[in-house]
């Protein structure tokens, strides 16, 4: 089963995402900021990274940049969880190498649909 790394500094958001994804049969690991996520990504191999944008220590945009420099994550789908409406963060994320985005607030079904789409 595909393995997903869920990154968000909000514990409730992480719980919700994890619960939803595990319920759909995915393997999930959590990280609370970009740096943690990067460390986990280096240790394990993930089929998809789902990351919040605004986080302490290392934000989601920087995380994407860092991940794309790693050979293992060159082509891995990375989705941003963003509430930015103006679009600038989406663009910033894309330029950093993010695959796409899921707009907050989202419900579990929307999350699953998008993820299934990406993971085929």
């Amino acid at each position, binding site marked *: 089963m595909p393995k997903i790394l869920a990154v968000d*500094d*909000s*514990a*409730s*958001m992480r*719980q*919700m995402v994890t*619960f*939803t994804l595990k*319920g*759909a049969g995915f393997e999930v690991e959590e990280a609370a900021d970009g740096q943690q996520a990067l460390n986990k990504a280096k240790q394990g191999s993930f089929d998809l990274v789902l990351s*919040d944008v*605004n*986080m*302490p220590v290392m934000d989601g945009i920087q995380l994407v940049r860092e991940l*794309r420099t790693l050979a293992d994550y*060159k*082509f*891995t*789908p*990375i989705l941003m*969880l963003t*509430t930015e*409406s*103006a679009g600038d963060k989406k*663009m910033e994320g*894309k330029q950093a*190498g*993010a*695959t*796409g*985005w899921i*707009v*907050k*607030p*989202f*419900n*579990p*079904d*929307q999350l*699953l649909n998008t993820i299934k*789409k*990406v993971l*085929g």
Partner: protein
Amino acid sequence: MSIDLSQFHQVFFEESFEGLDSMEGGLLDLNPDDFDVETINTIFRAAHSIKGGAGTFGFQVVADFTHVVETLLDEIRAGSRALEASHVDLLLRSVDCLREIMQALQDGDEPEMSLANDLQGQFEAVLAGEASSESSSSDASVLSPDVQPEQAAEESSDDVDGAEESKGYWAIYFKPDADVLRTGNEPVRMFRELEALGEFRSQAVVCDVPEFNQLEPEACYLAWNITVAGGTREEVDEVFEWVIDESELSIRWVDGVPSEADLGESEPVSADTTAQETVEDVSEVVEEPVEAITEAPESVDAQTQTSQPQPEETKPSEPKASKKAASKSSPETTSIRVGIDKIDSLINMVGELVITQSMLGQLGANFDMNKLVRLQEGLAQLEHNTRELQESVMRIRMLPISFTFSRFPRLVRDLSKLMDKKIDLVLLGENTELDKTVMEKIGDPMVHLVRNSLDHGIEKPEERIAAGKPETGTITLNAFHQGGNIVIQIIDDGKGLNKERILSKAIERGLVSEHDRLSDDQINELIFHAGFSTAEQISDISGRGVGMDVVRRNIQELNGTVEVESTEGVGSTFTIRLPLTLAILDGQLVRVGEEVFILPLVSIIESLQVDMSMINNVGGQNEVLRLRDEYVPIVKLHELLHVEPDNYELENGLLVVVEADSSKVGLFVDDLLAQQQVVIKSLEQNYQKVDGISGATILGDGKVALIVDISGVLKIANQNKVRTLPGDHQAA
């Protein structure tokens, strides 16, 4: 798949309250003239997380309100708006407001929104004011104008209504950016999605593929001509949503049946014109959802209602008052965050306990007297393990006192502004740990004491300068461990207590007589006396009709004490001493006749055998012990608690000198037994309140022993001074 989101609400509330605390802390640190961008970032992140969570978990009112807060913060963060002092005030007030809204939501009540609406108006006024490049996003009615896929699809599908019914197809030319693969976007995935919409055919355009030696393996050089017989325009757009900006893309609707010609020719000729059409189309699509958003709150509400049917069912039928009471007292599972190191040490401890247990088990399986020493060792080990385990478990409930301290910077800031005083607040020992229950209950008395220092202690700047002090006063909150207690001090460098006024007021109230000779400490003590706090003392700040006597009573309920030291002109120090935990008490077991009582070890000063030459009789009935320079009244526990003692004569028993509320009393008992930790069981819950008794515990032999409430005993002893005998106090 439908998931009940309410299961995440508790965590959401907790982290939101934490977020609000950190927003408040950050805001208090903000100096408009000179601030750290990271502070703004922290505040922004907290607001942002609350908004995101609130939207997701269905608290639309919170999301709406936080949106304007976040917008202002974002502008400040981005540098498009200069931070003003008024912004900080507004933000602080909105933090308070949000806290109340969230509390109401957590309690299951309808939040009171009038203040929020008022504040929201103020935010909008600020945001509408000069100098924002992002005025569009400050339109507060437009909450997070994000595209909600379904709604957007409904709204904009008119132009292609019935696409599937009518004979026709989408002719698509798609040339992704060469870097598309490096963003994890895979054209094959998109094609698979298109395939799901209807009959799908594609033809790769390979004319841009370079010579082999110039080919970069990670780049995408291909373009495609595609036909899809089905799907709405929205659905097709959504497939390309993430790559549309970097790609050459044209999508057009063709009536009829797709032919090979569509795949072959359409591209280069029509690409330019259709690409422009596409851009226009897309911009339309992006704008439309803004209208759709006005419906969003309803749909979110509907969702939460269906997702949490249980609470909804019971609520409407109940009368409002009872519902409120129920929700307050209902065991809303409060949780506590525990450091992983504490859990680890606990697990370690349990491991040791298991080893000891299995050792004893083996020993017991074939025991003979030769193994007695090992048995004793094993039991000693068990005792050691149990105590350590108990301490570790207790430590789980311990939180740093910074949780309580953190509310004071705000309080001091607001009040000193209100009173035109300049005050620095210094916090010391913030990491000192304290039981969560004690922590919750000590907050209010501390607030009262700090208000008191602000109001009565610290002088106005001009008075301070006249007195040769620095213009800015200092209030220090200090916490540290001492013995088995936590000590919290509230220290101010204000004018100190005015002893003459206290004394004259106390005489006026009949608390003391003019002839009493009182030490300075005793005079200061009077402020804690019930009946001292008077109407003329009440001010907005510290009055509130609550006197120092209430502060003292609240602290005593926690088995704690409060004392004041003060020097006129120099300042006052209030010292609160509290037990680290309410659940366990270090006790001294004493025997009176057949009964065993427990005295809190912390209150015991000394125990002694009575030398009758040290006993004086006062007024015929009351005996006092002359202990060095003090006279200590003697209370016979058997009289107080109506039990049959072994000894009625003082010289045959023991006196235990205990202290509470700065006064001492000698308790007459038959014998001193062991010292041990006892688990406190409430008498109120299991029986009823008994004067002079604070609780009960179960001893090793299964007997119940009562825990003596030292301050209660003192109170009774004082009454007895007047009434001579305990009258009809009925012991349990």
